């Protein structure tokens, strides 16, 4: 029998409150299926299962607070897999909860994958917990527009008003709880991780020109943001420096997937860091599509467990906020965080001549237990080289 336990979704998580079971005894489940909604300090999280089988018993009642690691359900393994020992879940090392290397099939990346919809439509749907697959699109090629989502929401409101009133499943997560989650993770990082910091300046002339030309040929719905280049460049550079794409748990443990934790600031304060899975394998357009889906859901605090627990490195981009440079704090148990400031025109000396170029200041904060400055410096050099050849990204 497989024991399904309350997962840990970050270094700061000690428990979560089961809000809703999505399955019942007798249901069959497969890898990537969402079986429960759990409320944490980071919002209502959709909890995925990574086993195949039949739900035997639900051991936890809805609205019950459940410590990380407690058995929530028993799953009878699918025939032919009964000899596989149940996956045990440690309670103090969240990054090992679902070891990436052991997962043969990646979970679906996001709820709206495959659904053609504008970013605004996705955002409004996420904020209102509306499943886009149930919405009829009237845009080009059947794409779902803002109007389609608003119409679906209005219809849903009418349905809800005409049925039995239900308590709000998605209870509000306050700014204070998010703040406490960030505080717990950052305090742990500051206590336990000996950081080193490196910085480099990157001439972004080619990247800016390449992006302008790429966007000139695209309708507004398909345009790329500069951060897409940064995400892809970081992911590609990590292929050469696997010790930075890792966790520290009584030693360095490299990760096979490159899952970029992308810092999303919340308007009311605080932040969440959902993962962009296998970023090195995605095209720039695919990364932009992921952002279009992920950022609205992150701001609506409507993420999946895999998106909160599987980052292997963090990327923070404070260029929009006006910062020239940012030195990040590592999110444990990761071992590195890459920081980007704004792209600004700067005087640059080239072959003894002064010129004015768009310059980006990139930083790396590394865990000195895991790597040394030499590795970090070489990583930044690789990152610089990749951003100066945008056509190769």
């Amino acid at each position, binding site marked *: 029998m497989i024991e399904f336990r309350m997962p840990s979704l970050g270094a700061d998580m000690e428990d979560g409150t089961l809000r809703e079971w999505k399955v019942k005894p007798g249901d069959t489940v497969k890898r990537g299926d969402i079986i429960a909604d759990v409320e944490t300090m980071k919002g209502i999280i959709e909890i995925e299962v990574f086993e195949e089988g039949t739900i035997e018993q639900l051991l936890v009642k809805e609205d019950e607070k459940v410590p990380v690691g407690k058995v929530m359900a028993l799953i009878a393994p699918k025939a032919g897999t009964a000899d596989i020992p149940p996956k045990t879940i440690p309670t103090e090392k969240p990054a090992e909860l679902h070891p990436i290397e052991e997962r043969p099939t990646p979970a679906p990346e996001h709820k709206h994958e495959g659904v053609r919809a504008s970013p*605004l439509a996705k955002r409004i749907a996420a904020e209102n917990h509306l499943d886009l697959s149930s919405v009829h699109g009237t845009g080009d090629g059947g794409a779902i527009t*803002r109007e389609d989502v608003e119409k679906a929401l209005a219809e849903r409101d009418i349905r809800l008003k005409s049925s039995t009133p239900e308590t709000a499943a998605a209870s509000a997560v306050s700014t204070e709880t998010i703040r406490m989650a960030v505080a717990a993770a950052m305090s742990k990082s500051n206590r336990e991780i000996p950081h080193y910091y490196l910085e480099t300046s990157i001439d972004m002339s080619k990247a800016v020109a390449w992006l302008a030309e790429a966007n000139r040929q695209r309708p*507004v719905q398909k*345009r790329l943001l500069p951060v897409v280049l940064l995400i892809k460049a970081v992911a590609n550079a990590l292929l050469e420096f696997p010790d930075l794409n890792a966790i520290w748990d009584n030693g360095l443990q490299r990760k096979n997937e490159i899952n970029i934790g992308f810092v999303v600031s919340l308007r009311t304060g605080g932040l969440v860091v959902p993962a962009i899975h296998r970023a090195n394998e995605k095209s720039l357009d695919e990364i932009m599509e992921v952002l279009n889906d992920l950022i609205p859901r992150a701001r609506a605090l409507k993420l999946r467990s895999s998106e909160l627990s599987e980052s292997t490195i963090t990327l923070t981009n404070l260029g929009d906020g006006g910062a020239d440079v940012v030195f990040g704090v590592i999110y444990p148990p990761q071992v590195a965080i890459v920081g980007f400031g704004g792209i600004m025109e700067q005087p640059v000396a080239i072959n003894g001549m002064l010129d004015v170029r768009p310059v980006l200041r990139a930083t790396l904060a590394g865990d000195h237990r895991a790597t040394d400055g030499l590795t970090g410096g070489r990583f930044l050099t690789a990152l610089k080289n990749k951003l100066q050849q945008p056509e190769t990204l």
Partner: protein
Amino acid sequence: MNESEIKTIIFQLLKQIAPDTEPSTLQPGDNIRDVLGIDSFDALQFLVALDEKLGIDIPEADYGKTATLERLMGYVRSKTP
């Protein structure tokens, strides 16, 4: 479309993008992104919404012409019948 109608639509779309802000307090010369705290992702979403609502696809080269409320309204007015 008159100025009042354009302003109403702009405020509605901004409010959808940044629900916790109050776009109606914007002054004509205010930089919209700075005053409302809108990042580049939200700014792009606003342009997508504007395109969906009014059929105006603002090229990236013209972003600078839409930075303030006054300039954005003028730009929209020039592109709508």
